[in-house]
């Protein structure tokens, strides 16, 4: 049984179709990242799973519970951290977390220590008695994430967990999310931040215009790009470069090879892990010394571009 399963899920807002027959599966205790630009349907999917929105058609299940037929059961096993932390302007962070912990059934004996621990770890302890309306955007976002870290649900849903947060804060949030998974939670994250996806994902689902374009591990997705890996070589001076260049082009997996100056080459290859040993073997046979090798993988932005024909990180959302 999947932790989450949707079949032919659609959602319409008037004339706009946010989800177009989405089939999506999430295994237990994995971190799945939904990657897609704004308007791709990520938030809509998360809100349907959290029973905040109702699907127009199709089915969505969390564990064995159907989101439309057993919404209360669904809400008892999941928690959601929203994209925008809003609402209780005149409450203080500690009060908000105390309320959330109590209503989500966190035992009273554990509440205060858990709240203190999370607030300290996410550097909110000093701000615990400030009114919500006086928190910075980053603090409000960290507070929103803290709710789930205290609740520790079986299925934790994060909508852009580290947006508006500085790099140090992002790392802390990511570490906490990983810790949550290690303790047995299944994690579903929506983001359009490539670094976040690379850091956290066991698998990535690429969403575009309400549809799942592909779903696989980060490594497999990168390997799918023909010529996506870049290998930069520097050979010792005096090498018969013309001959070696021809032989390098013959190695299986070479998509293109260009000279980058004297004894320097830049090769676009399909799978660098397979190409580099063949290349070093060739150099050994030709008694040519390699001075340096540098391998660059494609980013998830390249993966997104490959599968959708569009760049994920635009200057607007990068």
């Amino acid at each position: 049984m999947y932790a989450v399963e949707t079949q032919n899920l659609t959602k319409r807002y008037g004339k706009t179709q946010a989800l177009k027959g989405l089939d999506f599966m999430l295994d237990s205790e994995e971190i799945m990242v939904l990657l897609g630009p704004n308007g791709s349907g990520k938030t809509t999917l998360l809100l349907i799973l959290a029973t905040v929105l109702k699907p127009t058609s199709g089915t969505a299940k969390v564990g064995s519970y159907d989101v439309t037929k057993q919404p209360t059961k669904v809400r008892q096993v999941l928690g959601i951290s929203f994209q925008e932390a809003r609402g209780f302007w005149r409450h203080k962070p500690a009060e908000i977390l105390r309320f959330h912990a109590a209503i989500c059934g966190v035992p009273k004996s554990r509440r205060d220590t858990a709240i203190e621990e999370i607030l300290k770890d996410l550097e909110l302890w000093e701000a615990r008695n400030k009114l919500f309306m006086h928190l910075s955007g980053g603090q409000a976002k960290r507070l929103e994430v803290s709710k789930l870290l205290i609740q520790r649900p079986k299925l934790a849903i994060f909508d852009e967990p580290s947006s508006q947060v500085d790099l140090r804060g992002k790392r802390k949030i990511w570490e906490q999310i990983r810790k949550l998974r290690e303790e047995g939670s299944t994690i579903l994250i929506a983001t359009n931040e490539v670094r976040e996806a690379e850091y956290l994902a066991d698998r990535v689902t690429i969403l575009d215009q309400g549809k799942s374009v592909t779903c696989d591990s980060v490594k497999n997705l990168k390997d799918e790009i023909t010529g996506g890996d870049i290998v930069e070589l520097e050979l010792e001076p005096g090498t018969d470069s013309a001959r070696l260049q021809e032989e390098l082009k013959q190695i299986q997996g070479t998509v293109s090879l260009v000279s980058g100056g004297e004894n320097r080459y830049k090769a676009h290859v399909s799978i660098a892990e397979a190409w580099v040993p063949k290349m070093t073997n060739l150099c050994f046979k030709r008694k040519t010394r390699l001075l340096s090798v540098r391998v660059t993988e494609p980013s998830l932005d390249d993966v997104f571009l490959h599968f959708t024909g569009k760049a994920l990180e635009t200057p607007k959302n990068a």
Partner: protein
Amino acid sequence: MRNVIRLVWFDLNHELRPPIWIIMEWLTFTIQLAIYGALISQLVTGISNYQQFYAIGFVVMMTFDMGSHTGRHFVEHAHEGRLPYLLSLPIPRSKLFLSIALQGGIELALMISVPFVVTLVLIGNFTIISVVAAIATLFCLGFGVAGVMLGLSFIAFKSADLYTAITAGLSSIIIRFSTVLYPFIFLPPSYAAAALFSPLTHGSDLVRLFLGFDPNILLNPVYSAAILAALAVSTLGLGMFILQRLVEGVKSA
């Protein structure tokens, strides 16, 4: 039930921090009654003490305001992003609805407590039963009005401006075409016909009856009680239906 109490307390704590608006309402009532009520009662004939009549009318108007505030509050929740959060909590929708209704009831009780006591002191002639009956009538009216506003909330999910315009227009019609300020028998026929449809007419006449006003200048109490009870039950039922079946959190992006 514990979660309902938690929700009510959490939200009430938010609304009453600081409790300035409730104090301002009490002050408004006191000033209106002490100055305007006292002056106007010198001019009105046909009612033995218009200031007392006016005091009850004003309490009924405050009840109406509070009921519509509860409905609007729900809509504000949606637009401020609180509704999606509340909808995602692990409690049944019926309990969420109960918490909204209870919170509205407590806010109503707080808001009218001082004006109601002042009115009772002004009238001076009441019994425990008549006071309880008057309070029950006010709550029935408050829940009914909150239910109407909740029933209209689905408009707000399409357009908050349209909702504001409709509820403001409806409120002014319901208040103007009612007996909150003038007895039914003194109203012109066309005005009186419209006033029969206003829940405030029935609420204010029933409270006045319980607090000792002359039944000859008031509507039939059985008729008024039946209308208020039907209004509260039907609109609260409608509100609950909307919350369980139709309401979705406003999508933020």
